[in-house]
């Protein structure tokens, strides 16, 4: 079932600047976890604020459960949208206890029903013993959980999370990510995350929407976004990428690293750029090899090598960290492309 639909939503903060969100159209299914990924200033947070009702779109419609929330001649304020929000800074009310924070959105319930719901939701996030503490007495991870509990307490149809893990330490971040996903799946809550962290987007989401300059470049499963980026921007923003020039021939796409299939059916004679991921490239050291190792980046579980090809193009190859090749080693590089993705030369 379709829960949320954005139709040609545009938001401009100042007349003399490009729109923050530009003609955004997408739908989100019930129970789905969606992530907006993009560089800072790409419009992802603005999109979230438009859905929540903190901003009014200049044009287009925001539809939740077939009901127009914002659109021509119609405006539903945030308090009537039934959307939970987890803020980047958590926005916990400092003058209220954990239990009062969590119960803040339950003012329509009776006293005992509210207490029961607060207890239940605190149990879900594992904070039942912290009910009477104040937010400042909690750790970052605990505050994060209170913010989630508060947003979930009124059982919203949709919950929006704005960079929720960015204030946490790296190891805590991975742990909280897993826990938040468990809670969201457990409650069947539809969720939209905003992040600039690609790993976070890939591990959490059913679908990832990549935004750039207010436009949706691609909205697909994480695997599709990684292996079949729709645009050159997505290819470059998601994962490490090299591009190698090639020419389309009858046999396939001919490049310096060999001939690749042409599944996209490009016209013969066309000049293209072939996308190469570091895990697509392997090499063997050969004294007569045409490539040279320019640099090695030690990454712990892997070594990333930068190779210079005879044409001067640089490509990267990731290898296990067990063997180490010195800089200057001559190598023969090979590309094993499972997914061939090409972009037009000019793109």
């Amino acid at each position, binding site marked *: 079932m379709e829960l949320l639909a954005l139709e040609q939503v545009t938001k401009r903060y100042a007349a003399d600047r490009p729109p923050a969100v530009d003609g955004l159209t997408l739908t989100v299914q019930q129970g789905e976890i969606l992530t907006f990924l993009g560089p800072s200033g790409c419009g992802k947070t603005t999109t979230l604020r438009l859905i*929540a*009702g*903190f901003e009014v779109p200049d044009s287009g419609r925001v539809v939740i459960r077939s009901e127009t929330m914002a659109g021509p001649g119609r405006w539903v*304020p*945030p*308090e*009537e*949208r*039934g*959307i*939970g*929000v987890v*803020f*980047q*800074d958590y*926005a916990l*009310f*400092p*003058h209220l206890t954990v239990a009062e924070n969590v119960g*803040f*959105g339950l*003012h*329509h319930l009776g006293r005992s029903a509210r207490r029961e719901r607060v207890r239940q939701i605190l149990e879900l996030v594992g904070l039942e013993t912290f009910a009477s503490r104040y937010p400042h007495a909690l750790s970052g991870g605990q505050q994060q959980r209170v913010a989630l509990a*508060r*947003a979930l307490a*009124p059982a919203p149809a949709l919950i929006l999370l704005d960079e929720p893990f960015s204030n946490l330490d790296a190891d805590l971040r991975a742990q909280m990510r897993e826990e938040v996903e468990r809670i969201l799946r457990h409650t069947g809550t539809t969720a939209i995350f905003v992040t600039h962290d690609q790993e976070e987007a890939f591990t959490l989401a059913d679908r990832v929407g990549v935004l750039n300059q207010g436009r949706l470049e691609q909205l697909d499963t994480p695997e599709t976004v990684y292996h079949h980026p729709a645009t050159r921007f997505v290819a470059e923003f998601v994962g490490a990428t090299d591009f190698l020039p090639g020419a389309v021939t009858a046999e396939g796409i001919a490049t310096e690293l060999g001939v690749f299939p042409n599944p996209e059916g490009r016209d013969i004679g066309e000049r293209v750029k072939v996308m190469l991921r570091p895990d697509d490239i392997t090499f063997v050291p050969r004294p007569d090899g045409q490539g040279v190792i320019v640099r090695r980046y030690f990454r712990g579980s892997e070594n990333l090598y930068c190779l210079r090809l005879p044409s001067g193009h640089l490509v990267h190859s990731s290898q296990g960290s067990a063997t180490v090749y010195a800089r200057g080693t001559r190598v023969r590089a090979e590309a094993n492309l499972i997914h061939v993705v090409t972009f037009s030369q000019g793109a």
Partner: protein
Amino acid sequence: MSLALPTAFFVLGPIGFLLWMGLAQEGADFLERARALELPKVVGQVALLATLATAWAGGLAVPLAWLTVRTDLPGRRLMHWLAPLPLAIPPYIGAIVYQILLPPGGLLYSLWGAAWVLGLFTYPHLYLLVSAALERTNPSLEEAARGAGLTPRQVLVRVTLPLLRPALLAGGLIIFLYGWADFGVVSLLRVRTLTTIIYDYIQGTLDWALPAALSVLLTAITICVLLLQLRILGRAGYAQIVSGAKPPPTVALGIWRWPAFGYAAGVLTLSLLLPLGLLGFQASRLSAPAAVAFALGQWPYFVNSVWTAVTGASLALVIALGVGWLEGRRLTRPVSGLFQIGYAIPGTVLGLGMAGFVHATLPWIYATPLMLIVAYLVLYITPACQAVKAALAQLHPSLEEAARSLGRRPLATFWSVTLPLIKPGFMGGWILVFVLSMRELAATLIVRPPGFDTVPVRIWIYAMDVGPEPQAAALALALVLTIALPWLALLSLRSRGIYPSG
């Protein structure tokens, strides 16, 4: 905004009235009378008075602030706590104190005496700003200077003091403006300034034109100084990267410890301990039955002071809250800038302008205690707005958005989230306006209805008519103690980091 409009009306009305009256003056006639008053000489004298008072206050405040915040001065915590307290002693009471101490007719009754008193009882304005700036100074900046090869003395001169420039300017201009606008001290010490000339004129004659023209002149000067302040501060606001909780390191004074202690103790003695002691001593000369009779006789004036100050402060804060909240959300045009005019007008001028303006437009308010409340509102709406704005600025907008997303309407959000969170800043602003209104003398003297005296008015009349006798001292002591309690509460709010800037 339904309350901001009448406030703006009362801010602009008096000034407009004085402009109209003052400019209606016939040129030649005015020049003739200005010459008779030796106007250029008087203006020069007031300028000298304001400059001397500012320099004297700076000489008291800056070393004291540095000693208490950044050195190992003996008893620095106690002194840091005591240093702002002289603000509870209005300068005109300070003048009475030194009248008790020194023989009549001496050097005290001169420009120098007035500057001495003004500096001693206004220096905490500067102290508060400078000590706060010193506490905020990022120690890494001084460490970086040491790392670049500067000696501790060079660091003080080339890094620490330059970083204080915005605080010095802001505090210095407050005192400079006070010097221009003061009426209480100069009238008691018989120094002729613009304010005393204006006051004497409206007491003696029914002629509006000359006092109005002088008021316009005085207001023009103070507004120029205020604009200069805004301009300088707009440029000189240094953005320091705030460091963690690490407090700035203290400097070891070595053999200078005890001379420094003597200096700091001397400042506090002259401005706080001696005044309280002298007032107490002078008041104790009243016999017990006389004291009781006196207390009963003065009680109504006390009631007058308190209820007008409470009403004025409450009204100012309610308006400031409305204006601050709406301005923060860009739901109204900025009007609080306009209110600053009220802050720049000397009390004497505002009193005169309001009396004339209200008499002409709203005669049913004229000669009622409402006049006092409106005067306090106009004079002190700016500190109220600053307090509310500072409190609102601390409030992250996501808190209100969180409440909205949890189903609260805007008004419910305001009651359940905004108001509880800004309460300390709001209370601080209320106390500030209450204290300022309680001690207001110059405007009150002019706008009070016949027979409706406040405590400052009674003190002033006693001191002018009879001199610094036990009655005046007793009343002054009572006023100081009444102001000191809320002032202490305000300072404790400040030490928790929520003192309104202003």
